[in-house]
């Protein structure tokens, strides 16, 4: 029979993956429509889509996305650059490690969201405060990965370089940094998702645009559909950021084959 061929080549894993999201939406639609839960508090996907349409048509959507991405981008950039530099310093200079590690150990576990009240006092409603919160979330993860990365570089590689006549001044760029790359990349990738978590903290108070700001406002107006659309947008954007980072990082990560 003609369909035998297709049956033979259909991959059960692939089918399940393709059906996963449509099935989820169907189930959601059904639960909302069935009246088991209040459809006002738990609107169906169709309502979420039209809420998204209204958001888009209002002209605020791209503005919100741009503002949020700028906050994430700037915070991430400074958090990771300074994190890598300080990590190399503490990883190689014992005095720096002894001085800084206890302080960082104390500050690192404080959730960025706990800083929101202080940040508002310090920076007012300015964008600097938002950058600061994202920076705070990113910095420690990246610092840790760079710190451990440069320490874990195989001592054999250092010997190889010494034997080939590498001066001390060239050791960092030629051996330590490339050797630590696989660790630093893991840290940076974690920091990508963390920067979206901290974005939420940054937009909780003292702002008038941004994706999470929109979610917050919709909730206050009981526009649950719009709030859910905001959540989905946040999810999709951070997923894209993660994938994008993954593909870019594979170009520099020599340990990924």
């Amino acid at each position, binding site marked *: 029979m003609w369909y035998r061929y297709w049956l033979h080549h259909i991959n059960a894993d692939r089918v399940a993956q393709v059906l996963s999201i449509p099935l989820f939406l169907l189930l959601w639609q059904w639960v909302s429509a069935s009246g088991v839960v209040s459809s006002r508090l738990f609107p169906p996907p169709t309502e979420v889509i039209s809420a998204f349409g209204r958001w888009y048509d209002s002209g605020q959507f791209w503005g919100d996305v741009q503002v949020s991405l700028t906050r994430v981008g700037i915070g991430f950039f400074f958090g990771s650059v300074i994190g890598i530099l300080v990590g190399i310093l503490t990883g190689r200079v014992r005095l720096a490690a002894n001085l800084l590690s206890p302080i960082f150990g104390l500050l690192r576990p404080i959730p960025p969201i706990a800083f929101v009240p202080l940040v508002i006092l310090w920076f007012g409603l300015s964008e600097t405060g938002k950058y600061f919160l994202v920076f705070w979330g990113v910095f420690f993860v990246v610092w840790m990965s760079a710190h451990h990365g440069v320490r874990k570089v195989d001592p*054999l*590689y250092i*010997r*190889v*370089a*010494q*034997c*080939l*006549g*590498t*001066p001390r001044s*060239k050791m960092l760029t*030629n*051996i330590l940094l*490339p*050797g630590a*790359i696989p660790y630093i990349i893991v840290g940076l990738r974690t920091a990508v998702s963390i920067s979206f978590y901290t974005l939420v903290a940054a937009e909780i108070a003292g702002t008038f645009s941004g994706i999470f700001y929109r979610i917050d406002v919709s909730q206050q107006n009981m526009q649950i559909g719009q709030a859910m659309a905001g959540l989905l947008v946040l999810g999709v954007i951070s997923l894209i950021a993660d994938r994008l980072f993954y593909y870019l990082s594979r170009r520099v990560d*020599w*340990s990924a*084959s």
Partner: protein
Amino acid sequence: MKEKLQTKGHITADSVSIVFDSVGKRNVAVDDASVDIQPGEFVCILGPSGCGKSTLLNAIAGFVQPTQGELTLDGRTIKSPGPDRGMVFQQHSLLPWKTVLQNVAFGPLMNNTGQREADSVARTFLNLVGLGAFESHYPRQLSGGMQQRVGIARALANYPNVLLMDEPFGALDAQTRAIMQENLLNIWEEFKTTVVFVTHDIDEAVFLSDRVVVMSASPGTIIADIKIDLPRPRDALIVTSPEFLDLKRQCLDIIREETTKAFALQNAS
């Protein structure tokens, strides 16, 4: 050309002892070792696992300082590693983030050679070890034997006076190993650098060297220094010649005799 007179690469060890102080325990890795290695000489250090061969070699490389005694290269005390001593390591040691060409060009580049000149030196040595076609591969894409050949090319690219080799063929199968040994001898005939080659394989030591320095297990002392006056150039068939077998037996006898003596001494004390 074979008689090119080598004047550099003279190594001396004068009563060298190397002790590691690990938590409350003194570990004597090398005990009172003295040798004199002439410029251009091919010397094998032969001994069982753990007898301190790598430690002695690392001290010549400048990674480890003798606890007592003195090591010199061309009359100067060895204090630190340097490009005058090329090293081929026991484990995989190519830098995984660099291509084969970049690995070999790295030494010249670190010694103030320009990029183009360094690449051209690297290509010369890659061709010498027969891997010219693999210059843009990454180390993980090569077999173990190929990686060791790149390692040899890399060590030679600095034109060192001394080549230090730590069981470079230890992880290879017998056939590959035999080919690599012949290759190495050909390369050495051309450059006549001093070679200090560590191995625990008697056949390998006798086949390659001008002299075999035998070490015994803990504490690492030198128990014999045997001259190998087999004709050169040597090829793989020499291992079946009566002269080769005779020298091998000589080595075995000395090792057995010295080991028995050492055991007797240990039992007495």
